[in-house]
């Protein structure tokens, strides 16, 4: 089933066009990777899907994005509910300067959960789902800033899972991590795929080829090509894609 359908999406920063007539669909419980050189619009595109782009001043958007058939830019859309459903992991791990427990409990609390027992459960399952529980179960009440970079990123994923999202947007989630931590996140993505629809922006093409089912190549605001990952990386249809993934520019 199509989870996300993007139709002729244009985005402007002031007068400058950053996305040009993007059309893209994403199936449920699949991983789509967005690749392309810096400034090609892939992160911008990602941030339109949970309307984080709204926070940037002077952004203008036209076209249509539907998630589960609902137009997310329709007037009256509850952004809070949208972001609860469409969670986001950022490039640099950004845990709050709070304890591990409080980081995970933050989301459920703001969405109205106050039952102590229930919160304990949510924290435990979220940490387990993010493959972090065994590493932090004895230090739940210590500062999250004391964790390693890779652990912090998994903590951020756990924090996200705690609010019960359906779609996970990941904006270069491993670009600040060492290879081992990167591998753990990639393994995690492979596991999360069974339950969530994941869209991941990455500069690492090999990561894209490892973790994703489909890959989309962006270049200067255009979606050049989108295809099954194994096809896109072995026999892309477009010359621009070929040149980019062969390291001829970008």
């Amino acid at each position: 089933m199509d989870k996300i359908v993007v139709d002729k999406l244009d985005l402007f920063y002031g007068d400058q066009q950053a996305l040009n007539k993007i059309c893209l669909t994403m199936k449920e419980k699949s991983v789509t990777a967005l690749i392309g050189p810096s400034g090609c619009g892939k992160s911008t595109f990602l941030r339109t899907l949970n309307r984080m782009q709204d926070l940037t001043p002077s952004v203008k958007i036209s076209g249509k994005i539907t998630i589960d058939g609902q137009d997310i830019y329709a007037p009256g859309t509850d952004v809070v509910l949208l972001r609860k459903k469409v969670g986001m992991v950022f490039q640099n791990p950004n845990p709050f300067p709070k304890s591990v427990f409080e980081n995970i409990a933050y989301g459920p609390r703001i969405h109205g959960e106050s039952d102590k027992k229930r919160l304990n459960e949510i924290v435990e399952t979220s940490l387990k789902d993010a493959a972090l529980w065994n590493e932090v179960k004895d230090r739940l009440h210590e500062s999250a800033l004391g964790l390693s970079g890779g652990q912090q990123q998994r903590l951020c994923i756990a924090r996200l899972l705690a609010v019960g999202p359906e779609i996970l947007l990941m904006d270069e989630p491993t670009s600040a991590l060492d290879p081992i931590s990167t591998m753990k996140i990639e393994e995690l993505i492979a596991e999360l795929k069974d339950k969530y629809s994941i869209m991941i922006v990455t500069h690492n093409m090999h990561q894209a080829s490892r973790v994703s089912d489909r890959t989309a190549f962006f270049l200067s605001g255009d979606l050049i090509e989108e295809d099954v990952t194994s096809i896109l990386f072995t026999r892309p249809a477009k010359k621009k894609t070929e040149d980019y993934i062969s390291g001829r520019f970008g």
Partner: protein
Amino acid sequence: MPTRQKFDHELEELRTNILNLGNMVNEQITDAVRSLINQDLELANAIVVKDIALNDLQAIIEEKCILLIATQQPFARDLRKLVAGFKISIYLERMGDLSVDLAKVTIRIGEEEFIKPIVDIPRMSALVQEMIDIGLKAYVDEDCGAASEMSLIDDQIDKIYSGVFGELRSIMMEDPNKVTQANYLLFASRFLERLGDYCTNIAEEIVYICNGKRMDLNE
């Protein structure tokens, strides 16, 4: 972009090596067939020795492919070139082995008089060599169109082979004394037929380099 240039340079080097290997194979086949026709045992023995150098070159190509895949982690056409280059080198090495097998037929028959005039084997050999020439040129030019041309030649070879097969079978049934040599000659034509098949395999790899599609030309 120096990294990319270095990679391009190394791909070029790989291609040169494969071309050299192909030319070596071509020579081996020519010599093997000539040794058979002329019953030249010395030449036949030289072919067996020369195969060692051929195997060495194939090993170098294989190493280079592995190294480039590991260090460059190529995608798309680069990846296809490396994988295809790897396989082509293996096919060529097998073709080298078949030339040795042909030379061994020369040695087995020795100076014994031929039971029939040797006509079809040189014909098949010429066709195989034509295929190799076309294939190597198509590999350099990355020319997808040559594949069908090669496939047509292979059909001709197959046709000659089945003719030879029938002819030798009748000879064997008529005169049991001729069975041994007839068998050797049958083997020789069978080896040439196999050489043709390997050439079509190479043609398939060239198609893969060009458009990433797998096709079976042996049908």
